[in-house]
């Protein structure tokens, strides 16, 4: 099928309609499938972004097709962006939802899966375009891909396409990521691999590029000549929410910084790409990571602060300390807060420190990039009347852009006060943007890898982050300052900025 050859599709251009395909979800009885994946696929179908899509859930427990559809309908009813569910549309959508019982490590189950896919495609006249979504524990990524290869399900150039979406986390350090890349590349071409980072599916993260490169007035200021420093914050109000066991192994540096916040950093700091295609955008992002000044063990001790939350009050609710959370070692040395001072050694950003912080149990949930500009060259109205200009790109919640500047207070004397110019996404475009998973699934169907993480990016990010972990592991007595839940982190993090004569912004 070639949608582009259809003369009646011409001009219906606002819909990038992908070819018909089948999405196989490994880990289909899991939480992510019900909460995000099926609701996203349904909303896409509801918005007519899809022609026809068949879905095959794959997991261990025995479930009949109908029971699986019921479970998925529950998820869609509760979580889909497009609600209430349209009865007729659900009927025709659900008629192509199937369940295949199998174990990840049994190759025979993949052979029966293959036969099932062929049958579905034959009966519905669909082409053999297949997406395999690994919504599974990360330890299964390698084995599943190996088995897919052994069963002949992911040919590098078959009749249709075979693509694999890999959930996070991609490795736990440089070595494991390198190993996982090698395991995938043994079976798949890089073009077949879609490493997901749902942050990149967020409209406001994509808007950072539009904001920077579609406007001529900001970009000339985005460099060491005008920018004093940049602060990137990824704060969560929630704690570990019953995932204590997982978080004990991960820590905030792996959970938030290595993937999401480094992606945000790259979007904020990258050079303009030569085009808005996957290769150009991803090249520029990787270059940012390559330019990060490597951290020696001494640098880690000096420029990285970690902390762990104690009991406190968040959003008017008393909450326990990290070590009292279920599944957490009472003597845990896992960080729930991290702040880094980073340097990007390239022409544009030389001399501009990037301060990045991420934590659980902060006063509120907020992700933002704040660009702090240098002061005016002359304090014409007196030192007391200098207002720093800050351009803040808020990613969530309350997405938007604000610019702080000084303005004269009305009255006979000269007094300068900070005022804010605000642009809020929600008040300017009431339309609800698609969910991150919708955008990413659609892009995968269209074969567009721009918003997915490339192998070299993953390795570079781990190269940087693993050095921090290695130093922490070598330091036998971890310096783990506590902070009270519901505050902006330990005093040591304030000291990190104070040393340079700066303070954290209160987002």
């Amino acid at each position, binding site marked *: *099928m*070639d*949608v582009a*050859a*259809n*003369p*009646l*599709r*011409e*001009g*219906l251009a*606002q*819909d990038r*309609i992908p*070819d*018909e395909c089948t999405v196989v979800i490994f880990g289909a009885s899991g939480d992510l499938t019900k909460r995000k994946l099926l609701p996203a696929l349904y909303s896409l179908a*509801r918005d*007519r972004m899809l*022609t026809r899509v068949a879905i095959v859930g794959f997991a261990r427990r025995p479930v009949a097709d109908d029971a699986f559809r019921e479970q998925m309908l529950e998820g869609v009813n509760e979580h889909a962006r497009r609600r209430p569910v*349209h009865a*007729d*549309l659900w*009927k*025709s959508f659900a008629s192509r939802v199937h369940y295949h019982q199998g174990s990840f490590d049994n190759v025979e189950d993949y052979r029966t899966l293959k036969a099932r896919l062929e049958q579905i495609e034959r009966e519905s*006249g669909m082409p053999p375009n297949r997406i395999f979504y690994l919504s599974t524990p990360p330890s299964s990524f390698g084995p599943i891909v190996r088995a897919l290869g052994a069963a002949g399900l992911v040919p590098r150039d078959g009749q249709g396409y075979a693509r694999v979406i890999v959930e996070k986390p991609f490795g736990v350090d440089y070595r494991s990521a390198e190993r996982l890349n090698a395991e995938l590349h043994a079976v798949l071409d890089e073009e077949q691999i879609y490493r997901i980072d749902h942050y990149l599916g967020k409209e406001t993260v994509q808007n950072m590029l539009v904001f920077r490169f579609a406007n001529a007035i900001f970009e000339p200021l985005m460099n060491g000549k005008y920018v004093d420093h940049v602060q990137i914050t990824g704060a969560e109000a929630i704690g570990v929410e019953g995932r204590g066991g997982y978080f004990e192994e991960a820590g905030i540096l792996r959970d938030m910084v290595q993937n999401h916040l480094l992606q945000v950093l790259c979007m904020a700091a990258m050079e303009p790409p030569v085009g808005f295609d996957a290769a150009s955008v991803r090249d520029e992002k990787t270059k940012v990571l390559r330019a990060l000044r490597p951290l020696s063990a001494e640098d880690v001790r000096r420029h990285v602060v970690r902390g762990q939350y104690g009991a406190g009050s968040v959003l008017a609710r008393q909450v326990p300390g990290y070590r009292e959370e279920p599944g957490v070692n009472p003597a845990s040395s896992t960080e729930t807060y991290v702040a880094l001072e980073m340097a990007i050694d390239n022409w544009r950003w030389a001399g501009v420190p990037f301060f990045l912080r991420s934590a659980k149990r902060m006063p509120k949930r907020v992700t933002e990039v704040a660009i702090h500009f240098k002061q005016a060259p002359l304090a014409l109205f007196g030192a007391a009347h200098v207002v720093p200009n800050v351009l803040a790109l808020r990613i969530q919640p309350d997405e938007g852009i604000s610019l702080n500047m000084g303005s004269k207070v009305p009255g006979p004397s000269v007094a300068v006060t900070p005022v804010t110019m*605000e642009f*809020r996404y*929600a*008040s*300017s*475009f*009431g*339309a*609800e943007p698609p969910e991150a998973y919708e955008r990413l699934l659609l892009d995968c169907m269209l074969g567009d890898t721009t918003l997915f993480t490339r192998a070299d990016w993953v390795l570079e990010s781990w190269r940087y982050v693993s050095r921090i972990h290695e130093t922490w592991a070598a330091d036998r007595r971890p310096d783990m300052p506590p902070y009270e839940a519901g505050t902006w982190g330990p005093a040591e993090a304030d000291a990190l900025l104070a040393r340079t004569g700066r303070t954290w912004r209160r987002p």
Partner: protein
Amino acid sequence: MTATTERLGRGEDVGVDVAAIEREFAALWRSASGEAGAADLKPVTRACLANLVVWCEDDAHLAALKQAFDALVVSVPARVLIVKSEPARDDAPAFESYISANCILAPGGGKLVCSEEVTLVARGDGLRHVAAVVRALLVANVPTMFLLVRPPTAGTTAVTPLLGLCDRLIIDTAMLTDLRELVRMEALADGARQVVDLGWLGLAGLRSSIASVFDHDGPRAALGTLTQVNLVAPAARMAGRVLLVAWLAERLKWRGPPDNLRAGARRTSVFSGPAGALTVELTAVPAPPGGAEPETLLELVMRDQVVRVRRGSEPVALIETAVGVRSMALDPSSLGDRVARAMGPRAFDPAFPRVLARAVEMAA
């Protein structure tokens, strides 16, 4: 997004003095932000992404539009300038104006964003001044849209200068009651910089549903054997639905102008198509009094197969092909949502004027 809108109004005539209108707006904003008292000061954000000039002739229509604008403020905050044309009256001035503001209350109750509305009532001679007043009231540096859902009843003299002020004309072929109106509308639209049709936007779902039938190579090849297209539609909707056939004519490059024949409620147009003569039959079905709206049926007759697309009063399309019946949900969006969409950058379809011209060929 859940939000409620609140209207702040100044019911009395504020005169034609443009400076006075702006002063009244400023006062309105001050009273809006001070409303809650100093203890609970609510900042009001005036937001304006566009000017929307609206032409309207009767009260029921005006009420429906005002309701649509309540929804509009959520997605495209705009300064709305409603021009209401009325016949001259001895007991009323030639020109009156009223202002009001629409505010969205965020779910938590805080006032977030407001946009402005001016109603200009022009009678008889007053119509001559409309364009000048509108020109002075336009917010600078944002695009200007002109919503004119139907051609004006009393000629185009007052409307033409407004067209010249606007970047985009927004019409609604779904509101046109007969093909003659469609012809008049096309003549008007010809003078606009850009035309966006709410009816055409409303057909987008149906068009992609029809297009999807021909994504596969087999059915697409069959398009080359198309000899007859039948459209049966409620009489009151024919002017809007005929665009579907016009779209096929434009996309599939049927050669015209067609030979037209008319017999009662049935019109026949003969084009030159890929397989020789291609006959289009349009049949208008009157709605039974008080009954449900008759369904629309579009039939594409090819050599070895017939594709039928049906749409009843529900926003669902049923597509019957050789392989079976498929149902596709269509967007049951409100007038406000459609106007908001029509003001956006993606609503503009450069092919639409050609499609409209094709429809007029069949209506002639």
